[in-house]
């Protein structure tokens, strides 16, 4: 019958020494060399403390039913300016020719969050008027839930101009998040939940679109229309309205955030331990070599000799 190893077990030797001895000093030095360098290596190789991380989330976006539309025509004195802002439309009411506005938001995958906006404006131009440039501001309510509860009023702006008189303007675009700063990992964040086109605020100062956009672009978190496909169709019959149609998608976003304390500790811990293991193994070998060969004097206790 063949014999095989059923079970094996190690012998444990104990090396003993006094507190004030070379062995104690040696062990202390080895301990420091085992514990400190992994920390330094982990830190100096960068990424020890994770300062930013990403997550993906589809934002909860709603069209606020607020907009500003400026159409420049060939008669400079008579542009078309439409807005849902009462004050704005009040002072320039003679330019408002937007007779019909349609908006519809759709949740395609039925996850409770809207995925796209269909927006259409019909503008009654005079017969001889020709539209040449379109500037459209759409305002959205933008919410994120996963990490911090984030809410802001955000802007999507499209501008297009053509030398050819247009009949309709179609655009498809994505409403994308732009971040200058990391978001928090918890709590409620309504820093930017303030009006983008605040007429009450703007009008006491000198209202100007550059100022408005400058202030908006200064925000740490904002939205921008990207991946836009504008299409300008020419040839408007005299009795038909000029149509602006926009399809805005609300895609899932990769959001940068500042990790919380335990997440930072977890990753730092992992990195430290992984390097520490190597050091422990190496210095264990060194120690056993030193004590087995009695390079440093110590008392070796053999388990089967209990007589010392």
């Amino acid at each position, binding site marked *: 019958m063949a014999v095989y190893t059923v079970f094996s077990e190690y012998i444990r030797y104990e090396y003993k020494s006094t507190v004030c001895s070379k062995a104690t000093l040696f062990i202390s030095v080895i301990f420091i060399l085992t514990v400190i360098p992994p920390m330094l290596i982990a830190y100096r190789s960068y990424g020890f403390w994770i300062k930013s991380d990403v997550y993906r989330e589809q934002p909860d976006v*709603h*069209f*606020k*039913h*607020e907009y500003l539309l*400026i159409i*420049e025509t060939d008669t*400079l*004195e008579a*542009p078309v*300016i439409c807005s*849902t802002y*009462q*004050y704005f439309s*009040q*002072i*320039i009411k003679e*330019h408002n020719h937007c007779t019909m*506005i349609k908006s519809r938001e759709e949740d395609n995958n039925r996850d409770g969050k809207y995925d796209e906006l269909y927006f259409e404006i019909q503008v009654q131009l005079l017969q001889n008027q020709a539209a040449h440039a379109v*500037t459209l501001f759409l305002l959205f*309510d933008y919410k994120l839930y996963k990490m911090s509860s984030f809410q802001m009023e955000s802007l999507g702006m499209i501008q297009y101009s053509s030398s050819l008189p247009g009949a309709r303007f179609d655009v498809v675009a994505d409403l994308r998040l732009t971040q200058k700063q990391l978001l928090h990992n918890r709590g409620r964040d309504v820093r930017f939940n303030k009006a983008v086109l605040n007429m009450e605020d703007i*009008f*006491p100062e*000198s*209202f100007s*679109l550059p100022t408005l956009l400058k202030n908006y672009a200064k925000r740490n978190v904002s939205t921008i229309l990207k991946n836009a496909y504008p299409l300008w169709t020419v040839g408007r019959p005299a009795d038909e309205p000029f149509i602006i149609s926009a399809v805005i998608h609300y895609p899932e976003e990769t959001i940068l955030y500042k990790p919380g304390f335990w997440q930072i500790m977890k990753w730092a811990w992992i990195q430290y331990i992984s390097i520490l293991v190597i050091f422990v193994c190496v210095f264990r070998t060194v120690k056993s070599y030193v004590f087995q060969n009695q390079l440093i004097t110590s008392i070796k206790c053999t388990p089967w000799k209990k007589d010392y």
Partner: protein
Amino acid sequence: MKNLVLKMGNSAALILGISTFCFYVCIYAQNETQSQEINSTEANIVCTNNVTDDMNYVCDLDKANVTPSSAAITETEDFNGTTEIVGLESTLSTEVVSIANETESGLPVTISTVKSEIQTTKHSETTTETVPATTEMVLEAQPVSNEICACDLSMNSCDINCCCDGDCSDNDRLAFSACHTRTSFNFDSRHCYQTHFVYHNNTELKLVRNEDGLFCIVRDNLPERFTYQNRKVVTTLLEFNKLHRNHKTFSWPAQEVYRPLFDSSAPFRQGSVIWAVVNRTLVPFSLPMKVTHALCQASRAMYYLNDWSGTCQVPASDVERCESHRELSANTFYKGFTVLVSPQFINETYDNRLKEDCPADVCIPVTVHLCSELKSKISLFEQCTEVSDLQSAVYNSALQHCQNVVKEVRYMIYHNGTVGITKVYAYVWLTNMTLNTRLSQKFSITFHWAKDTETFHRSGNPGYIVGKPVMSGKKVTQIFGTEGEIDKEAIEIDENPEKWLSIAGAKNDGRCDLEGNEGNSLRYSVTFGENRRSSCMIFVSPSNFTSPSACAALHKAVIQLLSGNMVANVTSAKEFNFYIATFGDAKVEDTGDWTQVILESVPSFLTSSSRSDDWTLTCKGIVTSIHIDIMFANVGSLAVPQAKILGSVFRFGPPHDIMFTCSSLHCAHETDEQHFEVVSSVSFVDVTKPAIVEFAEPPVYEVKLPHDFFYPFFSNSPLLRPSNALVLVSLFFFPSVQSRLH
């Protein structure tokens, strides 16, 4: 095995899942073997799918009669390439069974649509055992959607390509090119069997596909997960509002009229609307403004204590418009209205109209001044005179232009805080404009305290503010005749910031303003923190090259232009009497707050020569550029950094030879003009020292030893000679050598 139920959404699912893991593996294994079996025998059914948003499956039975269905069977799972659907034959046969069941239950599905031409294979028996469970589940899960024929839109008429339309006869169907697909029952892709509708020869067939995967849901005990909850119809307004409140969405804003409110009780302070009274009617005092482009589009209400200025353009297209357009006529801006001193003087609620005429101390008229020419350098009071009335815009048919149109209106409003406005001045500049052009109008409103006399505007307090002019002046010394008194020094500075440090600008045609009369040449102020470069052209004619003195005159003119008359009589850099304030609030008495501008070199016209050969005239050694370097640093706290100018240097560029190339021999044409460019530039250099904490150095301990402690090693001792030291070393290290020496 069909009795196995995986109840999802339940905590028990996990336990159940683990406990039945083995069984599922068995199912999976069995499915695998089944598939293999069928695959080997009946591998003649091929389904292709187009990868789009939804998956389109077009099945091809026996690789013949391919009918590409225009509508698609939606499917949520990712699926690529061509897939062989196994077991289709058998499941198609069960469709007959299931539809038969449906007809038994009285559901409106026409059995005639199912052609029982599909042969049941041997394997159908094995599969029909499992599939009825699926069909049963499907019927439970989606009893409604099963019956929806969404494409049947016209009543009593056969909808084209709508195969489930009961109005279509078999003959009608022959006209169809494809069938509108019905959506599948199963919403959850985790089910073991996915049901789709497949159309073959315009015949609707049900396809049950066996899903691959380690786990799948055989039977769903909670089919409600995939059905919408029913809502009751709302009948009362209360119910409607309640339901609406719970589902708050953004909607179109309500129509409301915005109008500044007249409130006599509110304190009259910064931001309150200024009211004008026109024929007993209260209207906000407003000025034209632009909104989206350069034209005057709207009128903007003015607010108390808010300085404002704006420009906008007014077109004058025809004669009638010239005379009738309100904004072109000066009368609009001072006549026909009075300004309300403060709303608190009127004890009426706002009803747009006052009951009686406004008393003279409550409503004050506008005092109008006519200003001659728009010169920024001359004070407003010198160029404007008070007038009682102004001419309105008139069309001058002889000259064909619109006369006396408003170019600029400046309102200066003196006030006493909450007490209200004390005086309203309007300074009006008039001009003429030709028809069919646009006139750029400027309107501004400034507020001044009634008690103020003359205000001096600082450029910052204490540090400079970016964009404010850099203060500069000359040092003057007041010499007292009597002995013992120290001469007083001070800096002389102009009250007008535009006369401070400035660089030459160009006129509209790009020429330098060489002949600009004293104090009115076109110059740009050097503003703190903004690097500038301006250039202009100097035009020369042959007369500038006639003699060395003519060249010297040209040189002098350029230097004067570049330095702004500062370097005129300077012979050495130390004489340069030009000082820049280190802080924005520097006091003129305190010369320590001012730093002398360093002149790198005095541009002297040394060569003073003019040379002319037959084709060119030359003035040698003309300096054509200046560069001003201003060095500043932030001082004080990091939270409120204050910019301090440390010093500045005027550097004149290297001298150039100005050449005039003649077009013909001897430069006959006196009227010919050629030009050279004169450049002025300003740079600001930030030399801020970063905030670095400097620690005190550790104290040095002086360790004292008796002076002869190292006696043998000092130079005067006999031992420290190289040879001795060598012996000492050798004695120490090589005792054997020592012994041998002895």
